[in-house]
């Protein structure tokens, strides 16, 4: 049975709680036998609790497949870019270098590239991918465009990305705020503790305001320089 074309993958990093449920569930899939194919990126835990899940974007014209000298990466008729074919893959790593999203990975022990295949064993028979099913915050969502429009009125899916000269259209959508995004949240707890916003310890060097570096007198930790 072909992949259900009306079902799409939506990825919303603003919801990710870094719980790794997706990572744990991906390793349960029958196709990749214990290895997880999803990447969970930690932006910088010392500064933020933000994490970002990354699956294969299943590009319409997959760069990984285009650069593969052995023609080992196949895109199925229903638009899913598969892991490298075992007899063909020569583990050269071209795909790893070329993918603009940083998805494919080389498994040196097995001499093969493996990556997310959108749980082909599941999606090809109408089930949802493992990671999107379990994701407790639904940062990963699998469903129809109508469903996502109804569920996420504040955000919209996008599937066109520009890298330098290259524009890529993907089967996987990333959710972006529909309206102007609020300024990036300042994730130092002290900024919420003080009446006036504290000076940020990390400042752009270019515009330097002298007034902004005065230590706050009523702050017991104000004298500490980091």
């Amino acid at each position, binding site marked *: 049975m072909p992949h259900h074309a009306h079902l799409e993958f939506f990825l919303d990093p*603003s*919801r*990710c*709680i*870094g*719980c*790794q*449920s997706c*990572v*744990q*569930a991906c*390793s*349960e899939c029958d196709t990749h*036998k*214990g290895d997880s194919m999803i990447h969970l990126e930690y932006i910088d*835990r*010392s*500064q*933020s*609790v*933000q*994490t970002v899940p990354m699956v294969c974007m299943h590009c319409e014209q997959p760069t990984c497949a285009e650069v593969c000298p052995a023609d080992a990466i196949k895109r199925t008729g229903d638009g899913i870019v598969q892991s490298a074919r075992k007899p063909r893959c020569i583990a050269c790593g071209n795909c790893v270098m070329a993918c603009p999203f940083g998805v494919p990975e080389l498994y040196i022990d097995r001499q093969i590239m493996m990556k997310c295949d959108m749980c082909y064993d599941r999606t090809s028979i109408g089930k*949802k991918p*493992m990671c999107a*099913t*379990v*994701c*407790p*915050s*639904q940062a990963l969502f699998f469903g129809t465009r109508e469903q996502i429009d109804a*569920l*996420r*009125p*504040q*955000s919209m899916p996008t599937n066109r990305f520009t890298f330098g000269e290259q524009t890529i259209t993907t089967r996987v959508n990333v959710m972006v705020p529909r309206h102007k995004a609020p300024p990036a*949240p300042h*994730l*130092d*707890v*002290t900024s*919420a*503790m*003080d*009446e006036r916003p504290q000076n940020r*310890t990390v400042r752009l060097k270019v515009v330097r305001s002298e007034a902004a570096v005065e230590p706050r007198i009523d702050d*017991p*930790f104000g004298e*500490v*320089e*980091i």
Partner: protein
Amino acid sequence: MAKIPTSDLAITRAYGPHLSAAVRMGGEPEKLVKTHCCFCGQQCGIQLKVRQNEVIGFEPWDEFPFNRGMLCPKGVKRYLQGSHPDRLQSALRRDPSSPSGFRPMPYTEAIELAARELGRLQEAHGPSSVAVLGGASLTTEKAYLLGKFARVALKTPYIDYNGRLCMVSAGAGNRRAFGIDRVTSPWSDMLETGVVWVAGTNVADCSPITTNYVWQARENGAKVIVQDPRITPIARTCDLYLPVRPGRDAALFAGVLHLLIENADKGWIDRDFIAANTIGFEKAADYCRAWTPARTAEVTGVPERSIRQAAEIWGSARSSFLLHARGIEHHSNGVENVLGAINLVLATGRIGKPNSGYGTIVGQANGQGGREHGQKCDQLPGLRDISNPEHRKYVARIWGIEERDMPGPGVDAYEIFRKIDAGEIKGLLSICFNPKVSLPDSGFVTRALEKLEFYAAIDFFLNDTARHADLVLAGSLQEEDEGTVTQVEGRVIKINQAVEPPGEARQDWRIVQDVARAMGRPKGFDFESPRDIFNELRVASQYGIADYSGITYEKLTEQMGVFWPCPAEDPKTRHPTPNHPGTPRLFEPGSYNPIAKGAGPFYFPDGKARFHAAEYRTPVDDPDESYPLFLTTGRVVSQFLSGTQTRRIGPLVDQYPEPRIEMHPRLAAKHGIADGDWVTCETRRAEITLRAMVVTTIRPDTLFVPYHWAGPKSINRLTVAAQDPISKIPQFKVCACRLRKAAGAPDYTATLEPQQ
């Protein structure tokens, strides 16, 4: 004896924790069993893949309405606890001459030994010389049976449970304010609400599925307020973050109520609702008069501006949902904190209506059902009161005993240990409770355990407390038995059996009954299945507050859960109501309950809810010059409670292998500490050396350490045993501490594996 028979290390070598890795059996499962996760209070629906009497994996259960297939990593990997090498498969007897400290013994001999020893102690010292400690992960059937066993077979008042460490403050607050102890609304009421206030609950780590509800509400236009000393993932995208100092929650609620009243003319309080449905508003208003924004800011550490914003967002919302959890409840002032939160809900009248709600997030699988029907020291089935003669009479009749033979109220779990220490209690039977890791000031708990004359533990892994036992009986994992639990929303659900217990392990309810029979007290302990127990429980709960009488196993399966109360008879007309659908939302106008009898929606004779002054008290063991910092504790997403199960599951241990001390970079810099350095945290009771985790997401005056580890990595050696005077919950969430850089890795790192 109850002294640990040999070294901890030798026991660990024999009984773990060892890690199970992902062993894939391959091939198709023989069957899929629809059941629920064995861990937290959300009780996600899950299907277990079973082959040759082994759970080999899971398949999401998309239809179950609460989680619709979603699971946290614990749910995903829980199947790895079955067939685990550490799984107890026979009874064990303490034997210091054995290298592992224990020796297996046949099941029947073990039951006889337990019965003989408990009987001997009771004969010599009276029925109250034996205590029972239960667990809030037990099914409601087991909890009911255990309560009956303590009171009917043992005739001891001393039974309590580890839910004491969970939501008793919320329960006590709810009963004081509403007359009933349950979340008011299903989570689906959150989706279209105007504002969600999340107080002292790190939902991302402790109840991950709830993040989807909160964020769906936000997507639909709700504002989100988060009150926590740490920027948790849910705080990352909230509209207002209140970085409250640990232990100051009642003050913060009083400050907000002050502003709501000050702005009453803007409609920030619902005068009509207050007049028609509540009493005691003046008392609360009077108390919060002193809590001006300036004073509230000074005490709580939350800026005045943010307190004003909070009041405005809350006051001007069309509907609201307030959630809290252990962050405000684990305090010696926990009940007052809860009452403070309830005041905000009542003042705005946003309760008993669609799109509005209030509730605590249950931490443990059956925190709700486990106490409603049996194990709590002051309660009888159906949320009945053990001190109330009418209630006693009703339950005594069901149990076939005289009311005068039923013991009165006992004491809380910590007090049981004080009584053991004082020599009053000499024998203990525990089941699925690991107080050595989970109770505060665990050094004291260990010393008390050593004084027991006889200790029998029922468990499926040899947990840290069971190592003290004279006798360990191999009990059952959740997937080895059937029964019901009541999840966070008040929805009763059905746990289905997937596999048989291995070896000589037995289902817990069989063990309890076998002990009763071997003690020569078989009457009332001849149930043949959990269903039989449930049917007696239904009758025992009938006409009570937590009325389960209209719930059947069939209805639970058909409806995928039933919200209690679900009476078998219309309480007004006494006509049978076999099709009663259950009660998802409490306190709807015109709703009937057995206490108010039509006088109003709340569970008091006048049908009205109660405001309370909700006074702030400084925490016991607050920071001073010698211990200048706050220590607070909590969970991480991949581990659960004392880690008995999750510290044995390889992929979960990999995710967060050891506890770390979270601190702000300013504090770290003050002490010359870099991320990953070994640091020592010290309180008035003990000290601990762990690696530092330097993050900007915590208050600079606060340290955070997760509590799932045992022995030298157990933070509860440091916490204080101060308790709330009403709920007796220990004050886990705050004590005074100091910090220093350690000279190097502590000794234990040379011998202990990461997960231990």
